[in-house]
């Protein structure tokens, strides 16, 4: 608690962890490349350096606010330092900005513009490194890496995977998997959270755009799309809509215009998952076998469990994820020559997630030797396709998803946010669906922002104890508790990304705390 003076303004602070947060609270967007409020403080980019009343400079991200502090954030020398730091970063950075996938959304590019870096006086002498395309989820281009360490801390602090870290030192330093392995040879689960925080194009989505364009152009194919619940509240970000606005109707219309023959809603698949998963849960709950039941909707979580806790693999639900449920239904439905009109069926899913690109390739995602879902496009990729086509998003008429798989329940839609699967299962278990019961489920503690939520629910006189977990580091904590018999649960929902699919690895970037809140709130209304 206290008051500090920032550029002459008196600013009150309470529990802000550092001077930087107080500066931002004062309405000054001080530049940073290595600071994220959800990650540990690193202090490497030095862009947030400020000056006190005695002319002493310090990085505001790693200084605690003190009462009576007087600081300046924009003196001529600070602006000179920031510009020079960015010039130095750009000098050691692959500068093919015009063709870079991140162009226009690149944080480094934006800051360089803001600070007025229009000339680079130094030559790039960094050795050219090969691009790692081994993963189906992400692509790593080390030549664009500025060593801010955001991905490293995301992979460690939040996801507890540590697939990448710093190697070598000085100007030879690099962010790479251990022993310079390919990313696919590590424990990477493909969650794509590293890509979400990467300020440059060093980590990007492994795209399948070209294959889908080809399928759309081919007259002998029928292209079927399914849209995941979390896509609809995020895609509007890129087309000028308010953060968190549900633009499903527009998106369906746009996909039809792009040439998708049928556009369906993955919520339908989620409903199927709920039916199956509830049945499986009751069977196990009654018999007491393979308890607790872990959800299996999130492929990044499934892979994490397989990698780090193989002993818990039997606890994973045997149900397919909504995407795969849907994929199988589409394949079966379109077997009928009347339905497929003699054309080849190409099944495309529009997902908020990069790990879904790996899920479709898992052995259990095949039926009779055939891959159920052909391509996964993330929200970001579909945005690129829409932009390329020139279709003006908000001018397209709102359309309803096609029948018969365009109708999903609200319980299916909430799969996109943490707690959604649990809430859907509890609703399913609750016979009758009266308002009072639905309210009591809502208030059971299933909703909210926390990384680990524990709740109990009365089911036919027996108590169901559930844990709702998001973020793999949190999942690790819960698994350790279960392993050490420190906690007992009947049902455990895990989503690899913090706050669930709405903040998935394939979603539009530049999503800060306000966007998170807006996307979550969008679901509260849904429910």
């Amino acid at each position, binding site marked *: 608690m206290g008051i500090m003076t920032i550029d002459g303004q008196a600013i009150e602070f309470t529990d802000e962890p550092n001077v930087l947060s107080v500066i931002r609270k004062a309405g000054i967007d001080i530049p940073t490349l290595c600071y994220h409020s959800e990650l540990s403080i690193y*202090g*490497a*980019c*030095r862009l947030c*350096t400020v000056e006190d009343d005695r002319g002493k*400079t310090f*990085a505001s991200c790693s200084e605690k606010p003190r009462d009576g502090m007087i600081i300046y954030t924009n003196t001529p*020398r600070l602006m*000179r*330092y920031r510009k*020079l*730091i960015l010039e*130095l*970063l750009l*000098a*050691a950075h692959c500068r093919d900005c015009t063709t870079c996938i991140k162009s226009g959304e690149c944080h480094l590019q934006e800051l360089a513009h803001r600070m007025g870096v229009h000339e680079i*006086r*130094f030559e790039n002498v960094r050795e050219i490194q090969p691009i790692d395309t081994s993963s189906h989820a992400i692509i790593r281009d080390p030549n664009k890496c*500025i*060593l801010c360490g955001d991905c490293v801390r995301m992979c460690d602090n939040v996801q507890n995977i540590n697939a990448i870290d*710093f190697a*070598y*030192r*000085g*100007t*030879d*330093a690099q962010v790479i998997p251990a022993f310079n392995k390919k990313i696919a040879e590590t424990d990477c689960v493909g969650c794509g959270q590293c890509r979400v925080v990467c300020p440059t194009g060093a980590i990007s989505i492994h795209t399948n755009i070209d294959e889908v364009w080809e399928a759309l152009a081919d007259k002998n194919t029928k292209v079927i799309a399914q849209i995941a619940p979390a896509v609809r509240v995020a895609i509007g970000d890129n087309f000028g809509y308010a953060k968190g606005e549900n633009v499903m109707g527009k998106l369906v219309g746009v996909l039809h215009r792009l040439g998708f023959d049928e556009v369906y809603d993955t919520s339908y698949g989620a409903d199927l998952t709920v039916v199956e998963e509830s049945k499986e849960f009751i069977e196990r709950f009654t018999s007491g076998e393979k308890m607790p039941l872990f959800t299996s909707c999130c492929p990044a979580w499934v892979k994490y469990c397989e990698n780090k806790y193989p002993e818990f693999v039997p606890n994973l639900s045997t149900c397919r994820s909504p995407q795969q449920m849907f994929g199988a239904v589409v394949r079966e439905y379109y077997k009928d020559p009347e339905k497929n009109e003699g054309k080849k069926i190409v099944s495309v899913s529009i997902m908020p997630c990069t790990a879904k690109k790996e899920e479709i390739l898992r052995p259990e995602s095949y039926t009779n030797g055939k891959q159920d879902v052909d391509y996964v496009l993330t929200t970001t990729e579909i945005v690129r396709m829409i932009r390329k086509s020139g279709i003006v998003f908000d001018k397209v008429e709102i359309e309803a998803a096609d029948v018969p798989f365009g109708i999903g329940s609200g319980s299916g839609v909430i799969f996109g946010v943490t707690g959604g699967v649990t809430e859907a299962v509890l609703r399913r278990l609750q016979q009758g669906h009266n308002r009072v019961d639905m309210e009591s489920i809502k208030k059971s503690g299933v909703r909210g922002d926390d990384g680990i939520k524990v709740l109990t629910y009365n089911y036919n006189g027996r108590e169901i104890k559930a844990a709702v977990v998001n973020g793999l580091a949190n999942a690790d904590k819960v698994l350790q508790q279960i392993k050490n018999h420190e906690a007992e649960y009947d049902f455990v929902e895990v989503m690899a990304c913090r706050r669930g699919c709405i903040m998935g690895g394939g979603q539009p970037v530049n999503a800060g705390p306000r966007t998170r809140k807006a996307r979550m709130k969008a679901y509260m209304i849904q429910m």
Partner: protein
Amino acid sequence: MDFDSLSKIGAMIGSGGLVVMDEDTCMVEVARFFMNFTQRESCGKCVPCREGTKRMLEILERIVAGNGEMSDLDELEELADMIENTALCGLGKSAPKPVVSTIHAFRKEYEEHIIDKKCRAGVCSNLRVFKIDPEKCKGCSKCAKNCPVNAITGKIKSPFTIDHSKCIKCGSCIDNCPFGAVYTE
């Protein structure tokens, strides 16, 4: 001479050791030497130290090789000011100090390297000009035989001469002259 008086004139005291140098030491080369050390010691975490010291070293290497320009001095000072004030740890914060203090106290030497392409201490090999003293040369041809680029010519028993357009300043003529007739300017 004490800690305060030395730090007042911009000297780095560190642990209290002193290094005494005379006119045979090139101050630009000393700055390059220290920058080379700190640049190698840089862990690579913060941008000012990782990228900044590398660029300062590049500039200093350019100057001692005789390829410096006057704008390099401004660039060195600009980088030094930023690195000293923004680097994360003590290594980065003090890395530019030898450069700043040598530019401050021996600016003339930097300018000689850049404008006159001369190193008054005769340390920077690229700036040395090799000459044969006709008084001392006996015309034995040993220098010419050992010159890797055939830059030395002459008649036996009369003084030899060096073609400066060919000379690569390797110094093998000095090493091989039995009469001490080869010298540098």
